[in-house]
């Protein structure tokens, strides 16, 4: 298999994620786009690991990134729920104040 195939797939997925983060308004859909971008990174790690055949270093790092993604989505969704409780919406464009929800 040519190495560029997984790398180009990762590039396409990453750019779809970038589009989603920039174009979406709902915070939860933005978080979903973040997940797509992290998946592109994982694809890169696994592809390079398959290319340089060495003891699964890239796969280990991919598992670390998956753990990071889990931590990120947990905290992110907690923040989104707090935003919804304080403002009644989850619109990233309308959340302009950095004050505490009171």
């Amino acid at each position, binding site marked *: *298999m*040519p*190495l*560029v*195939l*997984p*790398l*180009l*797939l990762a*590039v*396409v*997925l*990453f*750019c*779809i*994620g*970038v*589009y*989603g983060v920039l*174009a*979406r*308004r*709902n915070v*939860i*859909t933005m*978080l*979903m*786009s973040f997940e*797509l971008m992290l*998946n592109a990174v*994982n*694809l890169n790690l*696994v592809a390079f690991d*398959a290319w340089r*055949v060495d*003891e*699964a*270093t890239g*796969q*280990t790092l991919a*598992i*670390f990134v*998956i*753990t*990071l*993604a*889990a*931590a*990120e*989505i*947990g*905290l992110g969704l*907690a*923040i989104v*729920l*707090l935003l*919804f409780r304080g403002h009644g919406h*989850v619109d990233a*464009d309308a959340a302009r104040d950095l004050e505490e929800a*009171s």
Partner: protein
Amino acid sequence: MTTALFSVAGAVAVVAAVVVVVSRRIVHAALWLVLALGAVAGCFGALQAEFVALVQILVYVGAIVVLVLFALMLTKAPMKPLPELTTGRSPFAAGVAAVLALILGAGVVFAFGNEKIKPVTDGSAKTVGTQIFKNWVLPFEVLSVLLLAALIGAIALSQRKKED
């Protein structure tokens, strides 16, 4: 054979990811995310990384998408299509994404255009586990502390009472 398998899974992943970012129904976008992440897991499988593929299905499809669906439910996301879900700056966003794809794709093709992946099986749980507990013990422990901190942070955020 592997290349064909990878290409099919990759095409499914790209189509599903596009639907995730352009769909006007939020819940449908979350469900298409399942397909996109599952197809990426298939790509991992085609690259002989079976343990990563299984972890991807367990953590992403099993946990993260369920969390996203719970968050959609708790924020009263409507089931009907929302035209205002995508902002007016989406042409600008598409331009940025296209330029980025062009630059990154050209760089990747320029740098690794002639390299080949030889199919070798070294993605079993045994290999990855040996690697984690032999060479990557400290990052692994730091990561577990980080996960704990994120969990405590999420609990603290969601338990917060309104002041006054």
